[in-house]
């Protein structure tokens, strides 16, 4: 069972949350300049890393707000969470660049 740190409510059980997939994959602001390859990349292609993963969660049975979590996909260790629109925590950003 994961213990997930909601930025508003603190540590709560995994069952209160819903997973929302890879974070920082934003819908193109000007859709019609995108070709099929770019759309495929946005819609379907995934990092699926072994290691640090920045991902969206929603506190569905709590405050119902969306936020991002930095989690290691091999150990499931959670390194922290941050609000939508914020930059990932420093450790996360570093590991991500070096990965």
């Amino acid at each position, binding site marked *: *069972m*994961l213990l997930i740190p909601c930025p508003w409510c603190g540590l709560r059980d*995994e*069952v209160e949350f*819903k*997973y929302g997939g*890879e974070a920082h994959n934003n819908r193109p602001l000007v859709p019609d300049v995108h070709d*099929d*390859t770019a*759309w*495929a*990349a946005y*819609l*379907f*292609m*995934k*990092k*699926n890393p*072994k290691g640090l*993963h920045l*991902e969206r969660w929603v506190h569905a049975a709590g405050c119902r707000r969306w936020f991002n979590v930095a*989690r290691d*996909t*091999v*150990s*499931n260790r959670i390194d922290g969470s941050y609000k939508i629109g914020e930059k990932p925590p420093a450790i996360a950003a570093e590991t991500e660049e070096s990965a």
Partner: protein
Amino acid sequence: MTRYSVFSLVRNGLKGHRAWPRAWRRAEPRRSYQVIVIGGGGHGLATAYYLAKEHGITDVAVVEKSAIGLGNTGRNTTIIRSNYLWDESAALYEKSLKLFEGLTEDLNFNQMLSQRGVINLAHTLHDLRDLERRVNAIRLNGIDSEILSVEQVKAMVPILNTSPNARYPVLGASLQRRGGVSRHDAAAWGLARAASARGVDIIENCEVTAILRDGDHVTGVETTRGPIKAPKVAIAAAAHTSHLASMAGLRLPIETHPLQALVSEPLKPLIDCVVMSNQVHVYLSQSDKGELVIGAGIDPYVSYASRGSLPVIEDQMQALVHLYPVVSRLRMLRQWAGNVDVCPDASPIISLTPVRGLYINGGWGTGGWKATPGSGWVFAHTIAQDRPHPLNEPFSLERFTTGALIDEHGAAAVAH
């Protein structure tokens, strides 16, 4: 290769079963091969076997980071069937089921194939209509499938709760009689033995750490036991497909999730077919040892940890007790997880790639066991001819760009 038969069994029995020869050669990596297959699961082993058998290509290495058959091949709940909705899937999975039907003889290795029937339950009117549509589509593809009334389901599965007052009452079901179970280890070991006998090197404890390229052409792999050259490299690495593809600079539409299953303490015969419910989210069969084999859906988040989380199996147990109240006091013997490679349309990728000589077979998600021989058969063709077989042409990587997805969530989400 010693032929397995009743005579070899008696002969070896008289020697106390101490003189059986190794089933496959322990191979050391050579400098180069014509084809390297990455991953010694069922799909990789079947690929190598059919490369040798169907295409006469025996200069092949299967490179496996641990021992063969310990990935999802050795972790699944062994259900096989071909009752998929779309023509593309029906053709591919039916090819595989047909190969399963002849595999024991072909490999000279008892697969313990048991075509005991696979039932899918309907709990709502919508469920029932959906199953009727699927059964019709399947039959139009010449594959056996039928609709059962509640009374017919009850006759086949007396322990099923068919009370009209149930929270999710059973309204009917579909049945594929040729579906059933087939022993997973037997396929891994039998395919390895038969491939090895035809000259394929099965190299265990050898992890691929890099994919070597010259421009846009693959030239071999780097491994924990040194570099191995080959003009053709084929990835059949399930959970690790994205990781290996990233070594060649490719990003794939695949995500890796834990998938759990459980077995109970052994019981007297209780259920003699496979029963699945998408709505109530559990499936059940009984092993030859008497254990109930129970599975359900994936954990929602990406993870390479070979364990799932408890809430998922708690839900699964609730569903089980709802459908089969008789098992409510049964104890579970063990639980385990594999890591499955999930595609957005619940269909696999068996494809050429933008890198010449690099082939990918992955994204089988929760349901690739049943496809093992068929997947190897079409993948071997794809590698040997450097173009897909008509059966796997629709399952190309390009479908995510063209939009020609093959959506099989109805056939593959909970049911594996």
